[in-house]
């Protein structure tokens, strides 16, 4: 099997899947995300089960502010788009563009995370501590786990950008950027579910 690809005619059109390693990473990433789906699904289930267990403390409808969450959603969706643009540039072997769009993705991710921290502080000041009620614990854990994923993704892309700042697109870094973008889309999709299940349903109920 092809461990190395023929580079005489330049980079292949799908540099991320040109080597066996790249193919493995690609599938491995999908399988890993399947495991993540199970994990988030379990947390969603728990949250739905415990949402009403407010123990006399603040309830979802008392706390959630749609405008803020809407802005956060938009920011994260945009960052998904910019990561697509980055991968698109990668396939065309435009390394500067790849870097540029990845940096934009990074900055959007940072602003999302800052808003999330701001949001949590707000709730805390409204009396929703982590240990206040089962609703509080499950809310902070679900949304916080997503936040932790964002943080991890930010660290990941930062490392990639630093490490490969001057190398150009190569067969060994293309799968890595690509795997990151898959991960980032996944986080985005999870957020859409959080937006619906936690916030919209929380305010609606």
């Amino acid at each position, binding site marked *: *099997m092809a*461990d190395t690809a023929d580079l005489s005619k330049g980079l292949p059109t799908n540099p991320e899947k040109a080597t*066996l*390693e790249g*193919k*493995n990473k690609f*599938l*491995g990433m999908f*399988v*890993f995300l*399947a*495991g*993540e789906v*199970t*994990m988030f699904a*379990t*947390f969603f289930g*728990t949250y739905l*089960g*415990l949402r*009403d*267990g*407010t*123990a006399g403390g603040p309830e979802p409808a008392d706390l959630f502010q749609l405008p803020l969450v809407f802005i956060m959603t938009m920011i994260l969706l945009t960052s998904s788009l910019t990561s697509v643009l980055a991968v698109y540039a990668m396939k065309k072997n435009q390394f500067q563009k790849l870097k540029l769009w990845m940096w934009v993705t990074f900055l959007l991710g940072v602003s999302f995370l800052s808003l999330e921290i701001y949001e949590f502080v707000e709730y805390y000041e409204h009396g929703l501590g*982590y*240990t*206040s*009620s*089962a*609703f*509080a*614990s*499950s809310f902070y*854990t679900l949304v916080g786990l997503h936040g932790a994923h964002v943080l991890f993704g930010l660290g*990941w892309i930062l*490392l*990639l950008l630093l*490490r490969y700042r001057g190398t150009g697109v190569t067969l*060994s870094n293309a799968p890595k950027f690509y795997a990151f973008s898959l991960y980032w889309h996944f986080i985005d999709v999870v957020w859409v579910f959080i937006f619906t299940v936690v916030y919209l349903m929380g305010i609606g109920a």
Partner: protein
Amino acid sequence: MDPAWDEFIITGEPFILAGQIAILVTTIGIIFILTYFKKWKWLWNEWITTPDHRKIGIMYIIASLLMMIRAGVDAMMMRTQLAAPNMPFLGEAQHYNEIFTTHGTIMIIFVATPFLIGLMNVAVPLQIGARDVAFPFVNNLSFWTFFWGAMLFNISFVIGGAPDAGWSAYMPLASNDLSMGPGQNFYLLGLQISGIGTLATGINLVTTIIKMRAKGMTLMRMPMFTWTTLITSLIIIGSFPILTVALAMQTFDRLWDAAFFTLQDGGMPMMWVNLFWLWGHPEVYIVILPAFGIFSEIITTFARKRLFGYTSMVFAIAAISGLSFLVWVHHFFTMGAGPMVNSFFSISTMAIAVPTGVKIFNWLATLHRGRIRFNVPMVWALGFIPNFTIGGVTGVMLAMAAADYQYHNTYFLVSHFHYVLIAGTIFGCFAGTIYWWPKMFGVKLNERLGHWVFWLFMIGFNVTFFPQYFLGLDGMPRRIYTYFPEDGWFSLNFLSTVGAYMMGFAFVLLVYNMYYSYRYEKRETSGDAWGGRTLEWATSSAIPPHYNFAQIPEVKDQDAFWQMKQEGVDPNGVEEYQDVHMPNHSGNPFVMCVFMFIGGFGLVFHWWTIGIIGALGIFACMIQRSFSRDDGHIVSAEEVRKEEAEIREGQANENG
């Protein structure tokens, strides 16, 4: 929590003192031997940092055997305590509680699961004609998470106190209020750390099997063990994250006063029970399906016949894996879910018996008119069929919700799951180990001793557990530490204890056989120790060269190697050697997992600084990994040619 120093190390208990001394002596002994024979470097270079699937598999198997000794001693202590009414052996209930908790947890998480993963590591890449798994670095990492997770769990009985809420750790029993002290924290963090590795293994094996099969090996030509490995890995991916979440929530409840399971704060204790069994039931299939695969390999090899009903076998495994997610409520029929829910889960549970039955009949049909050789692996496989069936049949009895009100939490249940777990999983582990032993170490295990082990173990097993069905019907509850003469349970319990000692003796004999055979048995000269049918037997030498195959064989049949032998094709008759790409060694996973252990240990005792040090260490390792350049290395065609020539020369000398 800040325990005082004199509470930190458990003192004043004779058995635990013996354990402490044993640990101390063994540790000093190991350090001394390694230093004396100057083996530290060898250990680090050849084993600890290895990306080689076969070596990782061997490490898994050795570690699982050690864990089996630990949990086996627990079992002996429990059986001794229960041998007669009012036994003073273990003193008090607390001890007994700790011992059955660690016994069950270790046997499931640190014996059955890793043992099978070890066998998968040894056999699957060879069976599909691959040079290694898809992610060798991750594979090494998986092993060390398992190892250090197990260590964290195991030190609990000498430092801080063992968990005592059962392997199922129901809330609120396992909460701070009812399980004081750090014991339960050891359970939570030890399982969490090793669970990461199990999930990673699942991902790794799915990718390996889907992407790295030899040319011509379509899915429906894969050996049955590879099939069961694939499906098992999928179950792992669908179920282990549930355990991760459940453990995390209980950890948060215990360490940071979260309210997931506390009733007065709006939490739901039943949530734990549901999540635990949503993982727990698939887990029992994680440990039985690979055993099914092993038996399929062994039965075809030693009956010298093609597997009967290959396609139906594949569908049966797939059906079992799907159903395994739909039956979890059968573990708590008695907790008041209502007749509709109970009926649904009753029926779905019974439905699992159908594909399982299909498999049993397929094995029988494979045996029918086979030219059977009664080598030791085959004897285990033949013993498996009737014994496992007893476990399956009693499972169906338990599945009847109404009747389960009678059986639940009695020795009837205990006997059921030991019949499936021992006669299924453990027989499978032993059979697989003996079958692939020549692949791992280049010799067979002595057959005479092997037959003795089988008969002693199999009879001992039945003497231990068959009486327990009747004890259960007679009303003896599980998890009690003693009983009264008036209960009338003495004679059956005594019998059961006698059987347990037989099994213990058989196990010791098995381990002795490993040593004995390594010293005295004749070395294998070819790669085909048993007249095998699948590719793992097609390697040029008994222990495969580190690149497995000089040239990846081309597969034309479901019994790929058998078909080559029929047609006189030599899979090692390579005309032109080619460069081989192999992964590099790395010490990073080992160090990373040591940090997991340190961090976990800190959390157990609420020592946040140590917890943070552990976390920082883990991140440092990840960053190191991400900045290191690791594209593997090339073994040149010339080197491969030389090595193959040497192997052939060695074989010619042996035969000549």
